[in-house]
């Protein structure tokens, strides 16, 4: 049990109702869990709660319990949460420090703040730049990059911190397909080393590619939870506002036309 929610609800300050409610979830070591659902179903709120930012930085009322590695983290300060649970949000411009002159410094920023030795920070920074395929951007000004490049820089900074657990809110929203694949590969690598990862994502092709388990939220509650291939082929996805993955959609289109032809099983959407 790595990240766990027991009967968790979250009501933002000033709101009259909870944005997520009665959510229970136990993640396992090395598990990549996808989180889907229509806009405003509660995906981002789940990410804020799991990362500890709600209620520590984003004010509101948390009910239920968040456990990290079996420990109730209610009393943990934000910096302690941040060391254990790394987070990325969909908008990279709010994620970058804004104080670093180069991409290299930006990617160092988080792990420097962990108080690591200089050599270690530098090694990790090179490794993270390499994993995101942005080595050639190292000397560039982060504020002058394209949206997708900024997103890769933000993710590289997170990877360099080597958090035990990761919570990612649409980390590839502005990425080109190649960037998306790099992120998917980096996440798979981290999971293989035992990190548990929760990734909120509208791109169900991405979830199909990297997740072993998928949860679907509707109006703040988990309504589907199971093996990725089962949940992503569930006929209820449309009604829940979740686009079916490409392979599922094509299969359905063929079935509707009465064509029983098998599709190549090894093609990744």
């Amino acid at each position: 049990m790595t990240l766990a929610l027991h009967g968790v609800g979250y009501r933002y300050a000033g709101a009259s109702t909870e944005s997520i409610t009665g959510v229970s979830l136990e993640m396992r070591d090395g598990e990549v869990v996808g989180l889907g659902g229509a806009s405003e179903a509660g995906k981002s709120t789940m990410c804020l709660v799991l990362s500890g930012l709600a209620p520590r930085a984003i004010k509101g009322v948390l009910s239920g319990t968040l456990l990290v590695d079996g420990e109730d983290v209610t009393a943990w300060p934000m910096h302690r949460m941040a060391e254990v649970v790394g987070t990325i949000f969909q908008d990279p411009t709010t994620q970058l420090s804004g104080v670093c002159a180069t991409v290299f410094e930006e990617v160092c920023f988080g792990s420097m703040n962990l108080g690591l030795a200089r050599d270690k920070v530098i090694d990790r920074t090179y490794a993270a730049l390499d994993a995101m395929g942005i080595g050639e951007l190292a000397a560039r000004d982060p504020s002058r990059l394209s949206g997708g490049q900024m997103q890769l820089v933000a993710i590289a900074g997170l990877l360099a911190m080597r958090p035990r657990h990761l919570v990612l809110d649409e980390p590839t929203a502005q990425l080109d397909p190649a960037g998306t694949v790099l992120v998917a590969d980096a996440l798979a690598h981290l999971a293989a080393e035992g990190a548990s990862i929760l990734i909120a994502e509208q791109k169900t092709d991405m979830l199909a590619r990297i997740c072993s388990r998928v949860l679907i939220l509707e109006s703040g509650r988990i309504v589907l939870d199971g093996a990725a291939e089962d949940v992503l082929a569930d006929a209820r996805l449309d009604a829940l506002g979740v686009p079916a993955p490409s392979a599922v959609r094509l299969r359905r289109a063929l079935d509707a036309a009465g064509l029983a032809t098998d599709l190549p099983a090894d093609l990744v959407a």
Partner: protein
Amino acid sequence: MTTVVLEDLVHTYAEGSVRAVDGVDLRIGSGERVALVGQNGSGKSTLARHLNGLLRPTDGRVLLDGVDARTRTVAQLARAVAVCFQDTDRQIFAGSVGKEVAFGPRNLGMPADVQRAAVTEALDAVGLAAETSTNPYDLGYSRRKLLTIASVLAMRTPVVVLDEPTTGQDARGMDRVATIVARLAADGRTVIAISHDMRFVAEHFERVIVMRAGKVVLDGPPVAVFGSAAWDTLASTYLEAPYPARVGQRMSLGSTPTDVAVVAALGARVHPGRSRPDA
């Protein structure tokens, strides 16, 4: 209606730095649905910002209906081309959804009744008609994105540029954006959309322009740009044809950029006598 022509367009952000746009020649006719695709940093957004004068060419020209954009102010260009940015929060500034969408029409000097109609129509198109008095920042990211699209629609310009309009959209949001693109084109307005979603591009655009390192490397209908003959070029800018195109190639169906095309090609193979269904 407005024809957009780029003549050998070059843009460098600082002297001696990389050419973000490096010699692009394009002609886009009115009512065309054009998707601009390419790797992050390939120059798509830089190119788009030239269309409404937010950026001026370092070299070359932008012509709108034959008139050099350089001779027009940003305010004048705003009547012809409206651009919706990738980063919503750099665009939104008003205290309510209604005021945000009304800003453009008011600045263009539309009469009050036309303004109201333009705002209502735009909010209806994005499904935010019930939110006119809501603070934009009380909307989630995906609805803020739709709000920025509404602001651009309300300006009723002949050319609409959408920078990654489907980012963060759920299934319903994707459908809304697709409907908006189709309606704009049906009204004879030009839609130029930047997107990383090859499925969306293949299904809803008639022309796909692929950029790499500031240059146009492919330009044609989805059936050509996503056909296997173009795959090496796509791969050189780290793009991949959408899933149905790859399925079609594997199954020797020819170029099938959409599900509809796969169904039609397989149907024709299984029932050779029957005519192909409408694509």
